[in-house]
């Protein structure tokens, strides 16, 4: 089979059209699907959370079909259609393995788990509970992540629980929390159908979230007055549907967003009654300013001045602002890694929220600030579930004494059990391992040996003398499992049961469709086993994930996330439920903070929205100045370097690179260069180029594209053999601790 990108696109197009007709994938590995049973589930890939059915025949997954009753209306992207192929991939991890010298050798479950438990006990006894850590994933099921979080924070008594959402969503969390007091978007996918203006910032929606992009395209097709504004240095496939693509110098988007606000205020497009009733203004960490202060702050962001800094046209900034702010139009913003993976990521998020708050374009159909999510359960399992080092479940904070006491009561553990100090965030965790402070690391369902920025530094840390790494993973080898001391075979997707929560606060049940391959076990079972071996079995007295879910419901009760009415039976019967959903008869909440739609807003609330996440019930417009990225090009490293997705592959490729069709399409990461840069380097498409940053170097083949901005190199992020993260910078946002994957400086030479 020899597929080109064109072939891939045609197959995707055909699959989507056939899905719309209710036909099943014509690309299933074993020909047209003839399943005996169809089991309701959710796509394993991005955070869109597309509903699907898993077709099973003879105990094997043979096909999938989109769930027409779910938000995706039966549509799936090609990656989703090809999910059956990952289940029996040749590199499925089927047996526990233990490192003996330089090799990993097969072991029994008992042998492996005894060793893991012994190393945990030894490290804790000798160095205290903070000598161990858990690094989880936005791909784990909610119940799995919950068991890990409870075991480490309430059993072992360390808050060293973090995960890969720190790499992708932490700044979005920081943005929502600082602006509204609580995390997660207030809107829903249906808002796409009502929006008149789409502001897509740092999001290649077409490739990273194709089903959401399809919905935007459909909205634009139905109403030719709909405008799409794309803010992105690169002219991505998303930008090609834009009515206005605003390309800019990387790292200047904070100034552009402030300049848009400048125009909104200067041209009277603000909603002053909304502001008076619902908005506070702030600077630094204090919300103690006023609209007049904000106006004074924005005076420094006149469009012409910003355009000169950002390398764009002032009139484009003005146009973007006018379209966004036009009275009577619904405006929806969407963003993802371009904003989040930055050392000023939280600030950049705040500035998008500002546009909605000053215009009052929020909480109305089609008007909402909507952060897109990269993983299927980053929201539900990790963010909402509080499985980051500074969090406790459902909006509670480690550093908050009342929250700790509440969790100790709910978990039935003695007062003072939960350590008051937040644990280590991802980069800090791996640096602590480098320094010998973290001795034992348990990695579940993720691939930090490939996905961390400045990755070679942390690969070395994972193999440092005295370090002990446990990797629970469905595939082996990965660039992480190859570094492990113990590799545990984890059950994969349709082999286990649990809940995923996607970007629109929609929780959905994935039902087990087949038995795990080989000796693989669900992570839920593995973690409960570890808890028992560590003497904390009393914390996890669960017969299965359903029991844990019942406990999780109780933890959410009374919080701003309240989904206490979301029983397992309701999840099973539904095609996803959106929280808040506090009672068994609650229909769920499409638009949060909105009176009449959100059951947590009192019926006698004074206005149509109530931002109840903050004590003063107001959302905050933050004054966030333009600041440059951590590293900018200079004479030695003259090019901008950025990384990202392509539609055919996903994350570190452990799944998509197992699909024959996808292996033929962008399997190899390439360096995309603007024609001017290619000419200056003397390279053409297909030539090799060596890129080097201050941290590392890697050779890539060149793809010349006029979609790239001159002076910027774009490299795909999925290739295990050509790791883009050898070059990326591990500087982090001081608020969210999220690394600045998206921007650093490199030099290039023809190889």
């Amino acid at each position: 089979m020899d597929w080109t990108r064109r072939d891939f696109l045609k197959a995707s197009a055909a699959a989507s059209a056939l899905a719309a007709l209710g036909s099943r994938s014509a690309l299933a590995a074993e020909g047209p699907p003839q399943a005996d049973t169809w089991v309701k589930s959710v796509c394993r890939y991005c955070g869109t959370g597309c509903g699907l059915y898993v077709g099973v025949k003879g105990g094997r997954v043979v096909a999938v079909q989109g769930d027409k009753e779910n938000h995706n209306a039966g549509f799936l992207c090609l990656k989703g259609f090809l999910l059956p192929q990952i289940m029996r991939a040749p590199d499925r991890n089927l047996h526990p393995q233990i490192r003996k010298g330089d090799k990993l050798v097969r072991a029994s479950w008992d042998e492996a788990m005894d060793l893991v438990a012994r190393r945990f006990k030894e490290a804790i006894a000798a160095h205290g509970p903070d000598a161990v850590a858990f690094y989880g994933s936005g791909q784990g099921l909610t119940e799995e992540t919950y068991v890990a979080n409870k075991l480490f924070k309430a059993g072992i008594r360390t808050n060293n629980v973090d995960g890969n959402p720190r790499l992708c969503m932490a700044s979005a969390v920081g943005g929502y929390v600082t602006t509204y007091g609580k995390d997660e978007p207030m809107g829903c996918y249906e808002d796409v159908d009502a929006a008149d203006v789409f502001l897509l910032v740092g999001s290649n929606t077409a490739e990273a979230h194709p089903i959401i992009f399809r919905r935007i395209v459909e909205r634009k097709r139905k109403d030719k007055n709909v405008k799409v504004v794309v803010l992105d240095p690169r002219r991505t496939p998303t930008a090609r549907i834009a009515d206005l693509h605003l390309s800019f110098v990387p790292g200047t988007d904070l100034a552009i967003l402030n300049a848009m606000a400048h125009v909104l205020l200067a041209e009277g497009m603000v909603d002053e009654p909304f502001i008076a009733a619902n908005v506070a203004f702030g600077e630094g960490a204090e919300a103690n300013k006023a609209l007049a202060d904000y106006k004074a702050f924005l005076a420094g962001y006149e469009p012409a001045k910003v355009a000169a800094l950002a390398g764009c046209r002032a009139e484009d900034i003005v146009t973007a602002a006018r379209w966004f702010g036009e009275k009577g139009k619904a405006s929806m913003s969407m963003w993802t890694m371009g904003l989040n993976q930055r050392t000023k990521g939280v600030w950049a998020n705040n500035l998008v929220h500002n546009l909605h708050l000053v215009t009052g374009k929020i909480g109305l159909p089609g008007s909402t600030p909507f952060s897109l999510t990269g993983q299927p359960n980053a929201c539900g399992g990790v963010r909402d579930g509080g499985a980051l080092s500074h969090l406790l479940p459902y909006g509670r904070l480690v550093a908050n004494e009342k929250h700790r006491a509440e969790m100790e009561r709910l978990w039935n553990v003695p007062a003072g059990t939960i350590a008051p100090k937040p644990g280590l965030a991802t980069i800090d965790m791996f640096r602590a391992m480098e320094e010998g402070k973290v001795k034992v690391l348990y990695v579940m369902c993720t691939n930090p040996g490939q996905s961390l920025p400045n990755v070679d530094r942390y690969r070395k840390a994972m193999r440092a003398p005295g370090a002990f790494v446990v990797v629970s993973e469905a595939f082996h080898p990965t660039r992480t499992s190859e570094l492990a001391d113990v590799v545990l075979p984890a059950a994969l997707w349709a082999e286990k049961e649990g809940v995923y929560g996607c970007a629109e606060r929609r929780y959905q049940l994935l039902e087990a469709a087949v038995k795990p391959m080989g000796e693989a076990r669900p992570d839920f079972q593995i973690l409960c086993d570890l808890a028992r071996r560590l003497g904390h079995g009393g914390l996890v007295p669960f017969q299965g994930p359903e029991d844990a879910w019942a406990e999780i419901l109780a933890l959410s009760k009374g919080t701003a996330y309240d989904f206490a009415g979301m029983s397992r039976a309701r999840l099973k019967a539904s095609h996803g439920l959106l929280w808040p959903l506090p009672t068994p008869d609650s229909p769920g909440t499409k638009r949060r903070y909105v009176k009449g739609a959100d059951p947590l807003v009192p019926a006698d609330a004074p206005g149509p929205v109530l931002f109840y996440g903050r004590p003063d019930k107001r959302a905050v417009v933050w004054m966030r100045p333009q600041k440059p990225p951590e590293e900018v090009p200079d004479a030695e490293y003259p090019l901008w370097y950025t990384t990202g997705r392509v539609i055919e592959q996903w994350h570190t490729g452990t799944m998509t690179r197992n699909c024959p069709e996808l292996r033929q399409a962008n399997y190899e990461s390439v360096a995309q260069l603007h024609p001017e840069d290619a000419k200056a380097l003397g390279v053409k498409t297909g030539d090799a180029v060596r890129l080097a940053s201050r941290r590392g170097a890697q050779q890539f083949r060149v793809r010349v594209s006029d979609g790239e901005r001159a002076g910027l190199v774009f490299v795909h992020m999925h290739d295990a053999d050509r790791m883009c993260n050898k070059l990326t910078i591990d500087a982090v946002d001081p608020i969210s601790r999220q690394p600045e994957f998206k921007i650093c400086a490199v030099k290039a030479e023809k190889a």
Partner: protein
Amino acid sequence: MIPLTVVAGVVIETLPGAQARVAARLAGEPGIELAGGDGDRRIAAVWTGADGAELERLSERLLATDAEVLGIFPTFVGDDGFPDPGGDGD
């Protein structure tokens, strides 16, 4: 510069029972590849062309000239703005 190629998945809705007749006529349309149908009034197809505007023009023309076509609905839009590695960049 490299010419852009847009690839779209489309559902073509026809009058009830007209699917086969419309499909036969579409088979001669440049850029259209038929992928399947529901046996009655909907056709799944892949369209390849220079840009979205060209697809729009095709939609308008088919709606104007084929009385049995009721609508053309995109289900997917992608573009192939790059040659494959090994091809010539400019």
